[in-house]
């Protein structure tokens, strides 16, 4: 470990621990997942930076949306995202979650992922190379450092908007709202 990091560790242990222990929820949402095995295995070895895949959303704090998101997957993504404990970071991987990418005219994939769940960082490319993943991660580190990776706070704050968008697209969701929202409260009152 770098010596001048020790001071940082003492000052902000939470932030540093979050940075160097990014446990990614294993979810192959799209074709981007093909570059994740190389990233976590011998050639690129993401475990050097504490990035390992974990089995369930409860255990992780990094959610990589690897590639285009179809409607059916979006439902699972929302469910998975809501089950992760705070603080949690989302990274959109590839061009497709940003604006639809090459599926811009597909009737079954969503175009802007950040309208349904908050996204902290993007890694562009179709598909991004493993090196790009590391650049994305280092960028995420910077964001965590500067308190800008606050997607989970935004989600809580604008939950009614997010939930509204989700329900607009997917119809009724099978699970109750995560937070008591303004809309939900109004509905209860009415």
């Amino acid at each position, binding site marked *: 470990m770098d010596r001048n990091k020790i001071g940082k560790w003492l000052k902000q242990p939470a932030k540093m621990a979050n940075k160097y222990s990014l446990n990614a929820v294993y979810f192959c949402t799209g074709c981007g997942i093909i570059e994740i095995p190389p990233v976590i295995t011998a050639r690129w070895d993401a475990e050097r930076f504490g990035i390992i895949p974990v089995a369930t959303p409860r255990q992780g704090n990094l959610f990589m949306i690897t590639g285009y998101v179809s409607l059916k997957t979006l439902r699972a993504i929302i469910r998975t995202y809501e089950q992760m404990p705070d603080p949690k970071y989302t990274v959109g991987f590839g061009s497709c979650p940003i604006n639809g990418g090459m599926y811009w005219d597909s009737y079954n994939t969503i175009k802007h992922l950040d309208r349904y769940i908050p996204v902290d960082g993007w890694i562009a490319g179709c598909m991004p190379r493993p090196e790009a993943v590391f650049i994305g991660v280092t960028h995420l580190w910077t964001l965590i450092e500067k308190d800008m990776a606050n997607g989970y706070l935004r989600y809580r704050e*604008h939950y009614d908007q997010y939930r509204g968008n989700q329900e607009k697209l997917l119809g009724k969701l099978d699970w109750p709202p995560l937070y008591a929202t303004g809309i939900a409260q109004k509905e209860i009152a009415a």
Partner: protein
Amino acid sequence: MNEGLKEKLEKAFPHAAITSMRDTDYVVTADKESVLSLLAYVKDAGFDHLTLISCVDWIDEGEFELVYILSPYMKDNEQISGNEKINLILKTRIARGNPAFQTVTHIFENAEPYERELHELFGVHFEGHKRLIPLFLERAYDIPPFRKDFDTRRYVKEVFDNIPAIQDIKA
């Protein structure tokens, strides 16, 4: 056998039009009544591998064209007879309005997901199919999406572009 099959088919199904496009592709066009018996017949004749069931939407003619592509497995484990390179493309047409057809799952068991898919994406109803439940899609579409009159670009504009971006209230 190639020529023999053609003659046999012509004899058994006088209404079926048989053309050979290239040396490996045979196209048999049949009316929809004789498709099932034709399939059973060619299955016995060696074409026991149903490779694909497809559907083409000829919107101008107001018809769906169902396409069954068959090819033979090897007769035994070792020997290649030469027939295996042949693809038999069996086509039939059904009306586009309220499309329905007989299922072929009792002849070819692996037709099941193909027919499910066509039911979902083209809205073709297969009578006798035991499990015509949705396969791929999450949302219900007014027009099945693979039909020619379903404009996916317009649909995207209408649906996805209408989802608002998240407004930051505080900012």
